[in-house]
């Protein structure tokens, strides 16, 4: 465990973001003949975590698992239907319009698609400087130009880029501009919604390094959402795995990667193609089918329809959480009896016996 992780584990650091029993149900009215029937889609259910200063929490899951919805709930681009989100002890959901605008200084977001996240009709300088139009007290007008230059350099671009338009930049450079825009309000927390998944491999590493450098320098905290487990491992201190709107496993990143307890986590880890042609005789935990529709979620454990280990109890009873999902916990009936060592040889380097 690194020093940082120890500090986190012992709870020494200040909590900057807290989610409590956060949930989102999308209302939908369905017509059946002449009647209207309300049918909710539960996109996010019962998410609890605390994020400490200077820490990165990874959030992993397949498409449609609700991780992007969760990101939008955290910055209140969407209103949750239950639970609360606290930023530095302030409940975002109780705030009035104007107070909410002020609170947004504390929490910012970086988006997945670097092409649609920048206004094509604004110059880079205008994009980065826009937060100060909204919060004029952050940087006094006289210093703004200089500050834009500083921010551009901080994210590895040139001062002269302030006059250019977004379409003159490549994907990776645009993502840097997005990062500079988020940094301009000097936030405490940045929600990163798949910030590198749209980028080329050779550029991904640059952006990950940049995010890590910024955290080292400014002490900002990240919630890092991704579907690529290798990327998440690189940047996160802790990680939570989501399936159909629920966290199924969570804990310190090394613990989860080296001894996963949930079959879904294991399947994800063992499905990653390994970049070594000589290590191809390992075992893969394959899942049948695809993620079921959240409109019609399975009974009991939501994962049981794809789980190779499912027994009768799984389809009938909702599994309880063992431990604390944010520290080290799992949501599975059989977690204590399963041994996943053979499937993660490529991660641990341990050769499994049997």
């Amino acid at each position, binding site marked *: 465990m690194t020093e940082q992780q120890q500090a986190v584990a012992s709870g020494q650091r200040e909590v900057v973001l807290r989610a409590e029993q956060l949930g989102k149900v999308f209302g939908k*009215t*369905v*017509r059946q*003949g*002449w009647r209207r029937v309300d049918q909710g889609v539960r996109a996010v259910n019962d998410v609890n975590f605390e994020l400490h200063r200077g820490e990165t929490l990874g959030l992993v899951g397949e498409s449609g698992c609700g991780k992007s919805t969760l990101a939008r709930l955290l910055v209140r681009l969407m209103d949750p239907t239950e639970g609360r989100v606290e930023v530095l002890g302030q409940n975002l959901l109780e705030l009035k319009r104007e107070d909410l605008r002020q609170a947004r200084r504390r929490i910012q977001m970086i988006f997945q698609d670097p092409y649609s996240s920048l206004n094509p009709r604004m110059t880079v300088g205008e994009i980065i400087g826009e937060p100060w139009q909204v919060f004029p007290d952050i940087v006094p007008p006289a210093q703004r130009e200089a500050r834009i230059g500083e921010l551009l350099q901080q994210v590895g671009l040139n001062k002269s880029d302030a006059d250019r338009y977004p379409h003159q930049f490549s994907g990776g450079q645009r993502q840097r501009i997005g990062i500079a825009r988020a940094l301009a309000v000097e936030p405490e927390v940045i929600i990163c919604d798949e910030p590198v998944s749209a980028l080329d491999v050779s550029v991904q590493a640059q952006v990950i390094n940049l995010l890590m450098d910024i955290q080292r320098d400014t002490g900002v905290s990240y919630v890092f959402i991704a579907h690529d487990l290798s990327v998440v491992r690189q940047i996160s201190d802790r990680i939570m795995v989501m399936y159909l709107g629920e966290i199924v496993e969570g804990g310190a990143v090394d613990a989860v990667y080296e001894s996963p307890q949930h079959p879904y986590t294991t399947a994800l880890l063992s499905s990653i193609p390994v970049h070594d042609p000589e290590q191809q005789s390992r075992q893969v935990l394959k899942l049948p089918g695809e993620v079921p529709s959240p409109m019609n979620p399975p009974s009991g454990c939501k994962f049981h329809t794809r789980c190779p280990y499912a027994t009768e109890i799984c389809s009938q009873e909702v599994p309880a959480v063992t431990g604390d999902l944010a520290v080290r916990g799992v949501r599975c009936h059989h977690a204590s009896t399963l041994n996943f060592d053979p499937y993660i040889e490529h991660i641990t380097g341990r050769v499994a016996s049997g």
Partner: protein
Amino acid sequence: MPYLVRRAGHSAIMLLVVVSFVFFAGRMIGDPAIVMLGASASDTALEQLRNNLGLNDPLLMQYFRYVGGLVQGDLGVSFRYGFAQMPAERFMDGGGTPVMGLVLARLPQTLYLAAVALGGALALALVMGCLAAMYPRSWIDHLVNVLSLASVSVVQFWLGLVLIVLFAVHLGWLPTGGYGSWYHVILPALALGARPLGRVAQVTRSAMLDEMARPYVAAARAKGLPEHRIVSVHALKNAGIPVVTITGDELVQLVTGAILVETVFGWPGIGHLLVEALNNRDLPVLQGAILAVATLVIVVNLLVDITYTYLNPKVSLSSREN
């Protein structure tokens, strides 16, 4: 099915709005009795007419009476139509020509003209649009583009006049106007069909170009389908949706265009009736003609929406869900 029922409900509401608009706006021009008899009419004559027509009742009651009449197919009576002079006495004994009869007598001619114009335009436009899309940026494409834009840019009644000058007056090939055998319809249909021809060709061309750039076309080529099938089955079916939309839209515009074209050619259709009513300041006929055209247009829109559900599997599915 509920979707269609709901859609039909919308149409009914629209119709009611038009009826109300026509009724109340009609009253805004002033006392209908004065409009009918003229400013020089005597007070007693006016009063008698008001009594006869129920104009002294509360407005709302008159409105309900009007709507009630419509439901029974009664569009009111015209006191000018069919009379060279307007003997005031005619009004008194409840005479006059029923508007419904006038409208029904004119409607088939308009539908006939519209069908010929639109049918011809549609067939030609689809061919033009597809040809242009198959050879983008070729001379065919340019020609189709300029031709279709030209036919959109032309004023229909002027085109009618020019056609008359050219083919009727100078060349003498076709009659200058009127209604009769099949060759009477040629010039009016040409004048009326120009605009839909241009619009549909434009939309077909750009919709087809969009579709041909979509990945499924590349996939269809990759699996070895012949090009003619890709164009005529794969792309055309998807391009069909905007084309149907624009066709419905043009059908609506066609009816308005008919007002002027019928006037120019003396074609005895509903548009001609409408202009005559305008010139005579014959309110009941004007209202009746407008209602007839509006009903036609609303029905056409309903049909277009129904066609959608057959063209686009997603629409029919979502309408079943929502």
